[in-house]
C-alpha cells in the first residue's frame, strides 16, 4: 500500500505494478539477463531432450575399421552416422548423452529444491510464528545441528546411510533418483528454514499483521494469507542461488559414483568415465559434460544475484 507514495520516481505519474517494477530493476543488470538466458537454454534442453538429441543416449555404436571408441568430434561410423561431439568409451553419442544428462541434472536439482523448500518453509514458518517458544527452540537447534556439517560431507554420509542405488524402507521402495533428491533436500532444507523464519519474524512485527490479529483472523490464516505472499521474493532468491549449489552437489555425487548410476546419462558420471582417457588426449570427453555443468552453475548464480538485486534494491545498493 505504501509503495505508491514512497519515492520521487512515482510522482512522475507512471504507475507500475510490482511485476513491472521488478522487471525494470532486473533488466538494468546485463549479467543477470545473461543468467536468465542461460537458465532458459537449459530448461529448453531439458524439456525437449527427446526432440533435440540425435540418438538414443544409451545406444552403442561401433567405431569404423581403424578407429576405436571414444571417437573424436565429427567422426562417422561405417553406416555414415555423424557424431557431432564424438563418442564415449562404449561408443555412445556424447551429444545425446550430454542433452539427456542435462535433463536428468535439472530433474534432480528442481526436484530436490522443491522438497527442500517444502520442508524448510514449513519449519521456518512454524518456528517464526511460535518464536520464543520451545517449538522455535527445538526447530532452530535442529537447523543449527544440520548446518554444523559440511554440506557435501553430510550428503555423502546420507548416501552412506541409505545405501547406493535404490533403497527399500519398510514397504516403500525408492528409486535411486528419488533417494538422491531426498538426500539433497535434507541437506539444504535448513537454509530455507532460516530465511523463512527471518521473514516471518520481520513481518509479524508489522502493523498489518497486528490489524489482522485484532480483526480476529486465526494464526494459520495470517500465516497463509498475509505473511506467505511477502515471503515469496526472498524464498525465490534463495531457491535460485541454491539451484547453483544443488547442481554442483548432484554432479559431485554422481562424479564420485555415489549419485546417479550407469547407464543413466549423467554429466557427473561422464566426467568420471573420462578420467581413464585423460592421456589419450580425449579432451571432448571432458569438456562437454564439464562445460555444461559449469555453465549451468554460472547461469543460476547470475540469475540468483540479479533476482536478489531486483527484488531488494536497497540491499543491492548497500553492497556496491
Amino acid at each position, binding site marked *: 500500500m505504501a509503495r505508491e507514495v514512497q519515492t520521487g520516481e512515482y510522482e512522475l505519474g507512471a504507475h507500475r505494478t510490482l511485476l513491472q517494477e521488478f522487471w525494470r530493476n532486473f533488466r538494468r543488470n546485463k549479467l543477470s539477463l545473461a543468467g536468465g538466458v542461460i537458465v532458459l537454454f537449459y530448461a529448453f534442453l531439458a524439456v525437449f531432450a527427446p526432440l533435440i538429441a540425435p540418438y538414443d543416449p544409451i545406444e552403442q555404436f561401433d567405431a569404423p575399421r581403424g578407429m576405436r571408441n571414444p571417437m573424436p568430434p565429427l567422426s562417422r561410423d561405417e553406416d555414415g552416422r555423424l557424431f557431432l561431439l564424438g563418442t564415449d568409451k562404449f561408443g555412445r553419442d556424447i551429444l545425446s548423452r550430454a542433452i539427456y544428462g542435462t535433463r536428468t541434472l535439472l530433474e534432480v536439482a528442481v526436484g530436490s529444491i522443491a522438497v527442500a523448500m517444502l520442508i524448510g518453509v514449513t519449519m521456518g514458518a512454524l518456528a517464526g510464528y511460535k518464536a520464543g517458544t520451545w517449538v522455535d527452540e527445538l526447530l532452530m537447534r535442529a537447523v543449527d545441528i544440520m548446518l554444523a556439517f*559440511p554440506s557435501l560431507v553430510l550428503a555423502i*554420509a546420507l548416501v*552412506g546411510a541409505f545405501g547406493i542405488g535404490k533403497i527399500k524402507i519398510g514397504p516403500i521402495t525408492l528409486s535411486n533418483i528419488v533417494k538422491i533428491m531426498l538426500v539433497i533436500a535434507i541437506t539444504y532444507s535448513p537454509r530455507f528454514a532460516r530465511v523463512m523464519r527471518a521473514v516471518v519474524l520481520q513481518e509479524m512485527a508489522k502493523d498489518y499483521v497486528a490489524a489482522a490479529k485484532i480483526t480476529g483472523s486465526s494464526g494459520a490464516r495470517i500465516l497463509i494469507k498475509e505473511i506467505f505472499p511477502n515471503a515469496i521474493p526472498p524464498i525465490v532468491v534463495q531457491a535460485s542461488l541454491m539451484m547453483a549449489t544443488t547442481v*554442483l552437489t548432484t554432479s559431485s555425487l554422481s562424479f*564420485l559414483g555415489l549419485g546417479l548410476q550407469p547407464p543413466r546419462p549423467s554429466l557427473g558420471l561422464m566426467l568420471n568415465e573420462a578420467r581413464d582417457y585423460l*592421456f589419450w588426449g580425449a579432451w571432448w570427453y571432458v569438456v562437454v559434460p*564439464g562445460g555444461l555443468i559449469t555453465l549451468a552453475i554460472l547461469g543460476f*548464480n547470475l540469475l540468483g544475484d540479479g533476482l536478489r538485486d531486483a527484488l531488494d534494491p536497497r540491499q543491492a545498493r548497500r*553492497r556496491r
Partner: protein
Amino acid sequence: MGTYLAKRTIFGLLTLLATSFLIFSLLRVVPGGPVDALIEEGWDDPELRAQLRHKLGLDLPFHLQYARWLGGVMRGDFGVSLVLYQGEPVGGVILERFGVTAQLALLSLAIALAVAFPAGIISALWKDKLPDHIFRVVALAGISTPNFFLGIALIVMIGVGLRRDWGVGGYVPFGEDPWGWFLRLLLPAIVLGTDHAASISRMLRTAMLEALGKEFVLTARAMGLPKRELILRDGLRNAMIPVITVIGNSAGALLDGAVITEVIFRLPGLGSLLVQGVYARDLPLVQGVVVAAVGIRVAVNLLVDLLYGILDPRIRYGGGS
C-alpha cells in the same frame, strides 16, 4: 574472555555431541548394515549373522550402542574399521589421513591468499575499470567451475601441453622427496584454492571500498590525503575481519572440497577415506570421518572467534547480548 572461551568451547562440544548422535542414528537406518558388508556371498546363514551382530554389539538396544560408542570416543577409541582396514582402529587411520588433508589445505590456503590479496587490492584501486572487470569475470568463473572439472582439465592441459604427469602420482611424504611432494600437491592445492581465492578477493575489494565511506577516512580525504593511500591503509585494515570470516568458512568446509580433490588426484586424505568408506559400507569408519569433519569445523570457528578479538580489540567477549 576466559568465560567467553569456555562458553564457546562448551557450545562446540555440544554441537559435536548432537551431530555425532544424528550421524550415529542415521547410519543405523541401513538394514543389515555392516553385517551384510562382512558376509561373503554364498556364506550367508542366520547363525553366522547372529554371531556377528552380537560381536559388533548390534543386538544391543540403540541407546546402549550409542552410549558404548560415546564412551569409547571419550577414551579416544573410535571403534574398529570393519571392511576397509580390517581390524585397525578408526582413530589411528583418521589421524594418519588427516595429515595429508591438512597439508593440502594449508598449501591451498597459501595459494589462495597469494592470489586473492593482489587481485582484491587491484580491483579496489581500479574500481569499475578494466582490471576490476577482468578480476570479476575470473572470480565468477572460478566460483562456477566445479572442482572436479577444473582438476581434470588441469591434468589434461598439463599432460598434453607440458607432457608432464603432474597430479596423477598420488602422494609422497615430504621427508622422502620434497620436490616430488610439492609437484604432487601443487595441482590439487590450486584446484582447492580457486574457490577460496575468488571469494576472498571479492570480499577484500568490497570491504576496502566500504572503508572509504567511513567518517575518519572522509576526514582524512578532506585534509588532502590521496585516495589511493587511504584505500591501501585503512581499507586493508577494515578488510581483515570479513576476510578472516571468509577464510574461516572455507577452512570449516574444508572437507567438502577435499573429497573431490583427493579423489581426482588420488591423495590418501580424509576426503577420499570418506568416499571409500561409503563404498565399502564401513560404518565405524564413515562415522569417525564425519565426526572428524564436524570437529574440524567447530575448532576452526573457535579459532576465528579468537582471531577477531586479536585483530579488533573493540570486540568484547561475553557480556551484552
